[in-house]
């Protein structure tokens, strides 16, 4: 009696290998795809930077007035320096929850905390 390996044709092998490769690629993508809460920095329509909120960074982004500096640490993300006159963006303090937003309107820099819909989040948006 022949074993399964002896029965399989070249065509069988090709189909099996193709399906296996496609499945493993898909599963590997799922396993490595970025998940969780992220910091997204934009200016106009352009995304300047994105990273997990739990990955410490010190960053600087140039707006029309000059560099806006950000820090991502265990408190969340906050603007530490800005060329705008009122420094309202600095006084907004840290953002850490999904939907939180920091903005330097004069320097046209937006910082948003983004995450997949979390049914346990305390709120979807903050009214202020």
């Amino acid at each position: 009696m022949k074993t399964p390996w002896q029965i399989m044709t070249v065509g069988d092998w090709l189909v099996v290998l193709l399906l296996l490769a496609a499945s493993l690629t898909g599963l590997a993508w799922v396993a490595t795809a970025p998940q969780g809460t992220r910091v997204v920095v934009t200016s106009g329509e352009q995304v300047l930077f994105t990273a997990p909120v739990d990955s410490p960074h010190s960053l600087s982004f140039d707006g029309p007035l000059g560099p806006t500096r950000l820090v991502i640490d265990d408190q969340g993300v906050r603007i530490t320096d800005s060329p705008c006159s009122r420094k309202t963006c600095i006084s907004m303090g840290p953002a850490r929850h999904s939907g939180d937003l920091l903005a330097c309107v004069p320097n046209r820099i937006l910082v948003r905390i983004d995450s997949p819909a979390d049914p346990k989040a305390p709120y979807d948006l903050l009214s202020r």
Partner: protein
Amino acid sequence: MTWNRPLLIGLLVALLALSWWRLQPDDETIHRSQLLMGTVVEIMAAGMPSGKLETAVDAAFAEIARLDKLLSRYQLDSDVSHLSQSDNGRQVTAETAEVLALGLDVALRSGGAFDLTLGRLNALWTIDGETPSIPHHDAIAAALIGTGPTALTLDSRQVTKQTTQLQIDLGGIAKGYAVDRAIAVLKQQGVTSAAINAGGDMYLLGQRPERPWRIGIQHPRQKGAVLETVQVSDQAVVTSGDYERFFEQDGIRYHHIFDPQSGQPARGCQSVTIITDSVALGDALATAVFVLGPKAGLQLLGQYPRAEGLIVAADGTLHTSPGWERYRAAP
């Protein structure tokens, strides 16, 4: 075990299907922000294929930008600027007339606590300027001459100014109107679940999947803290507070919500949150209630059966309208 070709192929196809299923996003939600109307406008939309959502959100942002060009006092070519520059008034666009009609109605019902004619006063204070300072009381008095709820009259699209120097400022209502119109655009495009937030003027369309939207209300004196959380669906939520745009001098806070009687920042409240059907109405009511203070503010809300309010008084005490409780989210 014997060789079973269909079974093996079937198992591999099932594995492939599983991996592709896991690759599909659980929640087709897009979230975009733009700086428009002097503030951050956020739009979150869900429940449709992302391509259609992107098209709808683009159209909503375009509508807000279009209205900014009509209603802003900072754009010299806007409808509002032309009206302010006119001697005795002029015909305005249908959109401007709609905003004026609603604003004048709230102005009359609030006894002038909401006022569309404070353009000169707002320009005098320069709260958002680089070096804000307290204007001289004579200058404030001069800026208030000829202002008030009857200083402007509207007949269809024809606006009449009682005095030539009257300067119109729709800052207390235009953002809300733009959000209302942008929501209408999203609805036309078939969007059934969305949120638009323009610097505190917010509309929540439909629901998050299987539950209403949960909106945190900023504590006016504790940065980053939430005063309470409400649950809403197909409603506007608007907050006005003295903590977003202000400067301090000699330990006194000077903020951007002015009492039209005195020309000074209103002192009765720290913040006011309104829940109602339209963002434009919520915007106007939040300002009017802030100026009136808790007691008279709640009386004004009594004239609007579909509006509810949460007021943080100047001393930090909380005051709510009778129907507010039904929006409160369980802790």
